[in-house]
């Protein structure tokens, strides 16, 4: 049963606006946001261990299977899949010119057991390679690509950084060489750059062929997408956010975006990873606190509807993460591009 408390704060000085605050329940504020109340008490501190993968400066880090993850190193032009024992399973070197060119990689995912798909900003392309690096397919997307996920049905779901009306929605399905817009709705912002940032979605596939897509900036909103013949069923989801960050919810910066504004905006999904076996989503977001002069990150463990299960606060500052289900740990790359292994198996601070 939810408890509702209505507070009316009178202005104490000329020019101070009247504040009307309604606090309803543990998780959902009256404005419809899913706040994690008492975050600082609930979050589980995590001690990470530095690990060496024999590679540095990963451009992209992504979970692959229950027992593996993939690293794209742009400086070396190399894509490598690692097992959760941190040993390399296979590796390919890609080209930056020619038909199979990957320039400006934005997102990578493994496709079945045989291929790897990469979104490249150079040419705004999808590039699909086999594990020897041979070209399987390319597709000119017609929009700036943001993220890609491979569904259990072998389809690719691609999200854009929208520019004006291109594309018309926030998700495109690629299958059989064809691109199809799925009805994931855009949010509208006045400024072009803010509009592009405010509509970037990260996407991860669920085990049942559907997907979860989460806004990276400004709005703690997400979607559950179930592709089907002729389109998709799209349901809105609310993303849990630490109560410490409440003031940043839906704050929209003004262009040009300054350092000060960057430090204060909400980032509902800095990174995202999955445990498909348990149907759980792992989101990296800002905790609202400071860690050594940088925004501290927290990992939110949720179910497929983004209902919070646990919150973790690793002792390193990072933006890139892949969850390793069998190890119940996350491999992260810190702000200096060094790798760490962070156990994420406790449910609450008592564990």
């Amino acid at each position, binding site marked *: 049963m939810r408890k509702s408390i209505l507070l009316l704060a009178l202005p104490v000085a000329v020019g101070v606006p009247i504040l009307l605050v309604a606090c309803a329940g543990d998780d959902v504020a009256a404005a419809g946001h899913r706040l994690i109340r008492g975050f600082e008490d609930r979050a589980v501190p995590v001690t990470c261990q530095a690990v060496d993968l024999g590679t540095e400066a990963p451009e992209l880090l992504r979970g692959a299977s229950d027992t593996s993850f993939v690293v794209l190193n742009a400086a070396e032009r190399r894509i490598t899949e690692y097992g959760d024992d941190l040993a390399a399973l296979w590796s390919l070197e890609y080209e930056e010119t020619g038909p199979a060119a990957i320039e*400006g990689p*934005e997102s990578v995912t493994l496709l079945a057991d045989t291929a790897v798909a990469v979104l490249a*900003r150079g040419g*705004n392309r999808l590039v699909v390679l086999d594990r020897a690096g041979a070209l399987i397919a390319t597709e000119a997307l017609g929009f*700036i690509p*943001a993220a890609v996920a491979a569904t259990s049905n072998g389809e690719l779901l691609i999200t854009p*950084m929208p*520019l004006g009306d291109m594309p018309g929605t926030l998700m495109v399905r690629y299958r059989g060489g064809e691109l199809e817009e799925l009805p994931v709705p855009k949010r509208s912002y006045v400024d*072009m*750059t803010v509009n*592009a*940032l405010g509509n*970037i979605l990260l996407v991860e596939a669920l085990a049942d062929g559907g997907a979860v897509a989460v806004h*990276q*900036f400004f709005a703690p909103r997400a979607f559950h997408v179930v592709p089907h013949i002729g389109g998709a069923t799209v349901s809105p989801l609310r993303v849990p956010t630490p109560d410490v960050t409440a003031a940043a919810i839906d704050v929209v910066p003004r262009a*040009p*975006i*300054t*350092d000060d*504004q*960057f*430090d204060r*905006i909400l*980032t509902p999904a*800095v990174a995202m990873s999955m445990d498909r076996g348990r149907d759980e989503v792992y989101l990296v977001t800002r905790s609202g606190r400071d860690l050594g*002069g*940088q*925004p501290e990150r927290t990992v939110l463990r949720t179910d497929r509807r983004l209902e919070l299960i646990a919150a973790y606060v690793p002792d390193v*500052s990072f*933006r890139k993460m892949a969850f390793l289900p069998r190890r119940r740990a996350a491999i992260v790359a*810190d*702000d*200096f591009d060094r790798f760490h292994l962070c156990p994420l198996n406790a449910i609450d601070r008592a564990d």
Partner: protein
Amino acid sequence: MRKLIAVFTLALATVAFAPRPAAAQGGDCTRAYNQCLNDTWDLKGFQQTMADIECLSEYLGCVRRLL
């Protein structure tokens, strides 16, 4: 006094040359974007539009990497 100056100088140098993670430099993306747009000023019509889109693409990629 000399010791105080030496300590202060050392502290200042430590802060100045300490490696800074990129998260504090989101504004650098904006500055680079503005410079890129300035660099396209001598292009005309469709060429300028495409160049500006390329600038935006670089900017968005920069912001995503830093946040």
